[in-house]
């Protein structure tokens, strides 16, 4: 192996910017092969961007990046080498699927890289064994602790035996024990798989000591390169942290100096936080198990423990965010009460997850919180300016929070938490991912708050040097507090070792040593795992891998599945019964100015029909107007004075009918009814008075209502509701399934794996087609057995048409997902774009041939138009495939067009 001669990655003149903000400025670096390379530096300096570019997850904007000697900007080359690269993005479990189990997650990645089943299963077993995840293989990824998530991420990355492993801040936010285990694992893997190159980014300088070759970065530039020893030697410093700081430009270095912590004035015994037997249970899982805490006012109290051990839950109970299951908790001597505004104003809370408004700018976020906490309006600008300066946010004041790099965002969260100068600060891992200088700056502020203004600080952290600075610390594990004391006392008790070692001992004592026989187990990654089709342009394997994963997710969400299946049947019932074109039981009243038996007879004729229901008579035209105006009457009959007399003398009196025209369909129908009733009355009258039927028209007009002799709207409507429901539900579910990956970040798996857009989209589409077909069967059963609408035509043709139709409606969902990036927009777009066209322009009520204008154009090009025709034809007219071939041909055009459009619109890389 000649590492010097051929670098694994060669970066030449690469620059990258997000909108207006430069992330990388003109980077040139050759990264040697076969060694462990560390990108070090605080957050927001461009480490993640550079790794994204190398992994092919982002499009190279300018410059050139060669990986394994070829241009990563070339799509075809990228697809070919994708199986040789493994990428684990930043953020705990970001590329994992929370509802899938440990095994299923690794299995999915194995499928993506086309590893054949038996080999895949063997490798997964071995990897899980090696990472000590084997006992948890059926636990869902969302329920793992941070350390376990990262190990699982590593398993997913290693399943295809890569030659280049890229890890973006893999240990950020993990407890010391898990961190130690993680690096041991990586070392052993490298030992087994000689020649594998590893590129890691980290903000922990102590971790960087163990890497072979370092690339310190700052402000989008590379400061130097070389081994840790070389860097330390060049700068003449004894630690990497010091070496790094010395490499920084002088203006950044200036403020940094060692922290001194004045002792806590021990006079006060007032308790800020007091908890006894605090317990939280979620179902049968006890997250926090009878925790006792006594934190004095002004104290800095540290809270340590692995992720998922109950720290966050404890903090949430103390802030009143989570109800307490058992025990009691007091803040400032008062019981924690979710509703108490006074207490909230005295407490500042910073949650672990970034929880600011991504769409608001830094300044707007600070202002919003300052005002919500009632800072006097006059003091706000000054307070905010001070915070901006203190936290180095001045340059970002008008940048949207969502665009900030992780570390800067964290600083903003901090600034927001203390904007109202609270007496008690509850900070949940506030410094995760923040660079050393900013962390020191932050601690300086905490110390100042505690010592000078007497603010109590309750802070959780993974950094040992931060723990050392606390007055007292508690170590928590699996819901219980293992030890609470001064840091020095804890070290002394463990025999004077470092705090980290003391904790690892405590953790090992309760956790037991993980039984992982790594060396035996890791044979899996020795060889070339990828099968020949790993880099192939299309692989059914990968496509089905996506389908399988999506199907698992749908099945894991029983509410979604039940809604999708039973919800449509329920809607069918409601709409089938409810939508009726039969106009009946309309309210009418008469203004009878005549009042003779003849006029009453005429009104009676109308009242006795099933279409109209008589209301109390009208007295005068003012009342007629008022009652029609209020909508009470749909019809008013006005009979003129002298009606009876005129009728007798053959003077053809006029009867006036006032129809409420505000709903034209109803008015037209009423008009038709009245004509019929009028003629009927005249015929009856003639028979009664003359004894024979006069000739009113010279011919008989015979109306034959075909396909639906009783003219019952259920026969027409029930089949039409099926197309309606099979449009909305599949379109919305499919659109959300794709956009969800975009919003939650797992889309990166598509970017860096050999999977193509076709495989991704069609793979995701298949399960929803299946769900829709099942839903169709339920709809069919409801129509036939509940509504008694028989199927007169070809059942096979109906299924065939439905299959094409749901492929189309799920395809529409894919298309919507291609141009939307948030779930809220995808939901709105899918609902709005399909609703109008399907309800109004596809022949549900008016046939498309009667429409005009844009509605006609939309209707002619909308799949529901043809499907409604097919469904009605088969249900009510007894047609078969041959009769409907025209509609089938048109319907068949949609799926390919939609698929091609969605594929073209979906980006293959991040920007």
């Amino acid at each position, binding site marked *: 192996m000649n590492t010097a001669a051929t670098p694994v990655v060669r970066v030449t003149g690469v620059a990258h910017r997000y909108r207006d903000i430069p992330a990388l400025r003109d980077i040139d670096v050759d990264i040697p092969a076969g060694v462990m390379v560390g990108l070090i530096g605080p957050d927001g300096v461009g480490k993640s961007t550079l790794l994204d570019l190398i992994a092919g997850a982002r499009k190279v904007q300018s410059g050139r990046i060669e990986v394994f000697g070829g241009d990563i900007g070339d799509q075809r080359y990228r697809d070919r080498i994708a199986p040789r690269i493994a990428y684990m993005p930043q953020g705990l479990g970001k590329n994992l699927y929370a509802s899938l189990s440990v095994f299923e997650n690794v299995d999915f990645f194995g499928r993506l890289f086309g590893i054949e089943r038996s080999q895949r299963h063997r490798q997964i077993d071995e990897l899980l064994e090696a990472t000590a995840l084997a006992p948890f293989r059926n636990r869902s990824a969302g329920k793992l602790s941070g350390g376990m998530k990262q190990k699982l991420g590593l398993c997913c990355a290693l399943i295809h035996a890569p030659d280049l492993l890229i890890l973006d801040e893999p240990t950020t936010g993990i407890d010391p024990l898990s961190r130690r285990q993680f690096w041991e694992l990586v070392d052993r893997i490298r030992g087994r798989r000689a020649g594998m190159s590893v590129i890691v980014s980290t903000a922990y300088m102590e971790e960087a000591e163990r890497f072979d070759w370092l690339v310190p970065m700052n402000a989008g530039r590379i400061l130097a390169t070389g081994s840790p020893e070389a860097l330390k030697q060049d700068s003449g410093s004894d630690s990497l942290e010091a070496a790094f700081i010395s490499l920084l430009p002088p203006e950044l270095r200036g403020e940094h100096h060692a922290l001194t912590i004045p002792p806590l004035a021990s006079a006060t015994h007032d308790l800020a936080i007091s908890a006894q037997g605090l317990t939280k249970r979620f179902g049968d899982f006890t997250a926090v198990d009878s925790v006792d805490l006594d934190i004095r006012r002004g104290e800095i109290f540290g809270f340590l423990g692995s992720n998922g051990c109950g720290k966050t839950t404890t903090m949430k109970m103390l802030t009143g965010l*989570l109800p307490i299951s058992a025990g009691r908790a007091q803040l400032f001597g008062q019981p924690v009460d979710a*509703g108490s*505004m006074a207490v909230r104003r005295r*407490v500042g809370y910073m949650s672990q*997850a970034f*929880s600011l408004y991504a769409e608001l700018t830094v300044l*707007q976020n600070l202002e919003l*919180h300052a*005002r919500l906490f*009632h800072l006097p309006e006059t003091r706000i600008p000054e307070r905010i300016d001070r915070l901006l300066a203190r936290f180095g946010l001045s340059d970002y004041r008008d940048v949207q929070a969502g665009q900030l790099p992780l570390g800067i965002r964290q600083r903003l969260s901090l600034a927001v938490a203390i904007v109202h100068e609270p007496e008690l600060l509850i900070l949940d891992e506030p410094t995760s991912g923040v660079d050393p200088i900013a962390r020191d700056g932050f601690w300086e502020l905490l110390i100042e708050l505690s010592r000078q203004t007497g603010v109590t600080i309750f802070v959780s952290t993974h950094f040992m040097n931060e723990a050392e600075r606390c007055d007292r610390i508690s170590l928590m594990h699996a819901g219980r507090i293992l030890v609470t004391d001064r840091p020095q006392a804890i070290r002394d008790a463990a025999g004077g070792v470092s705090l980290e070692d003391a904790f690892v001992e405590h953790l090992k004592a309760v956790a037991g040593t993980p039984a992982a026989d790594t060396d035996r187990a890791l044979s899996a990654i020795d060889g070339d795992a990828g099968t020949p089709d790993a880099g192939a342009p299309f692989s059914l394997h990968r496509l089905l891998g996506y389908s399988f994963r999506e199907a698992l997710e749908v099945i894991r*969400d029983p509410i979604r599945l039940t*809604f999708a299946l039973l*919800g449509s049947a*329920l809607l069918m019932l*409601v*709409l089938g019964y*409810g*939508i009726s*074109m039969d106009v009946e*039981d309309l309210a009418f009243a008469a203004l009878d100015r005549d009042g003779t038996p003849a006029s009453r007879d005429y009104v009676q004729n109308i009242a006795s029909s099933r279409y109209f229901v008589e209301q109390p008579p009208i007295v005068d035209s003012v009342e007629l107007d008022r009652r*029609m105006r*209020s909508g009470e009457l749909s019809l008013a009959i006005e009979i003129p004075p002298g009606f009876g007399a005129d009728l007798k003398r053959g003077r*053809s009196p006029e*009867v006036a009918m006032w129809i*409420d*025209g505000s709903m*034209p*369909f*109803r*008015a*037209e129908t009423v008009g*038709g009814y009245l*004509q019929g009733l009028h003629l009927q009355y*005249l015929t009856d009258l003639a028979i009664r008075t003359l004894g024979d039927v006069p*000739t*009113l028209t*010279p*011919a008989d*007009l015979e*109306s034959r*209502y075909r*396909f639906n002799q009783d003219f019952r709207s259920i*026969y*027409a409507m029930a089949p039409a509701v099926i197309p309606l429901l099979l449009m909305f*539900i599949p379109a*919305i579910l499919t659109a959300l399934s794709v956009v*969800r990956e975009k919003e939650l970040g797992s889309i990166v798996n598509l970017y860096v794996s050999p999977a193509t857009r076709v495989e991704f989209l069609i793979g995701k589409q298949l399960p929803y087609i299946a769900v829709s077909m099942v839903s169709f069967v339920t709809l069919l059963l409801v129509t036939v057995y509940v509504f008694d609408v028989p199927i007169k035509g070809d059942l096979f043709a109906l299924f065939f048409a439905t299959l094409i139709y749901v492929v189309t409606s799920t395809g529409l969902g894919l298309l919507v997902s291609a141009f939307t990036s948030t779930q*809220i927009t995808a*939901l*709105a777009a899918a609902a*709005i774009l399909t609703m*109008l066209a399907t309800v109004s322009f596809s022949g549900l009520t008016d*046939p498309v*041939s009667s*429409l005009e*204008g*844009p*509605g006609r154009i939309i209707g002619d090009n909308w799949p529901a138009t043809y499907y409604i025709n097919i469904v009605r*034809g088969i249900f009510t*007219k007894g047609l078969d495939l041959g009769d409907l071939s025209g509609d089938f041909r048109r319907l068949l055009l949609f799926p390919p067009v939609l698929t091609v459009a969605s594929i073209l619109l979906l980006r293959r890389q991040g920007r």
Partner: protein
Amino acid sequence: MIGASLRTSLSHVVLLTTKELRSLWHDKVLLALIVWVFSGGIYSAATATSQELHNAPIAIVDNDHSPLSQQIRDAFYGPYFKTPELIDFDQVDPVLYAGRYTFVLVIPDGFERDVLAGKQPALQINIDATRMSQAGIGDGYIRNIVSGELNQFVSGQLPVSELPIELVTRNKYNPNLESHWFGSIMEIISNVTMLAIILTGAAVIREREHGTLEHLLVMPVRPTEIVTAKVLASGLTVLLAAGLSLELMVKGVLAVPIHGSVPLFLVGAALHLFAATSMGIFLGTVARSMPQMGLLLILTILPLQLLSGGITPRESMPDIVQTIMLAAPTTHFVSLAQSILYRAAGWDTIWPRFAALLAIGSVFFFAAVVRFRRSVAFA
């Protein structure tokens, strides 16, 4: 004391509402959708049909080839009917099966001769009864047209008795029964409802998925204030869009005469938005994820839209459906919109609708507030 706390609450609501509006402003695709539904969407929905019976496709089988049959054929023209196509008798079934025509008239051999001979021959009207909206109305029109032509043809040749009672029908509020008067307003109503529910419901889910909701709840802000701000922000946006659409699109481009008071309608719309947005938030607290929200949305929005009386008449629905739909805000909104905008009804006749909307809105609003904190705790 009470005054002060009310003032703080108000200032919180104003701040949070501003925040919501800023978030919305940031989402350009969503804004584009809102603009589209209230402009292009309304336009295409309103102009698709101008009358209830419009361009109905009709075919005629003329086995008579007489002056009378020619006269009947010529009597069908736009805008009610398309120009009739002449087809052969054996084509009747195939064209009806294929759904090419809604109506097929069959004029039998010797029709004119038999009419003049007073033999009362039969003329057959075949109707595709699966096209509910055209079938019944069109039947009436065809009968009127054919009888008119027949009467005119035979007048002076045969004795036809005059009708002993004349029937005069007038359509109030929309004399020519132009559909777009109705369609445009109903489309606004359905958009108002759908957007109100989507905007608020999805906003709640998004805040929860991003953790910002939790953040709000540790601040001295009451759930009531958060919910009010969301109701206000989405409500105001949609109200503004609907108001502009009514003025510019409906009154302007579509030239629909509005008889009643637009401000009164907007007050009604505001009340409806209060109810619909509260409903959206309530749904947002029930659903655990956006896909669930999507399904819940479909489950509620379709009945709300289709059974409100805006598509088909309420009277025709089964009693139980009518009763249940009294609990839906859309039912009242559709009714008050028709009353105010078409029939120029005033406050005195429609206040019960306003009261109903207020009551429904309050129930959902308080349910949303109660569920709000709980939904965060169990998220």
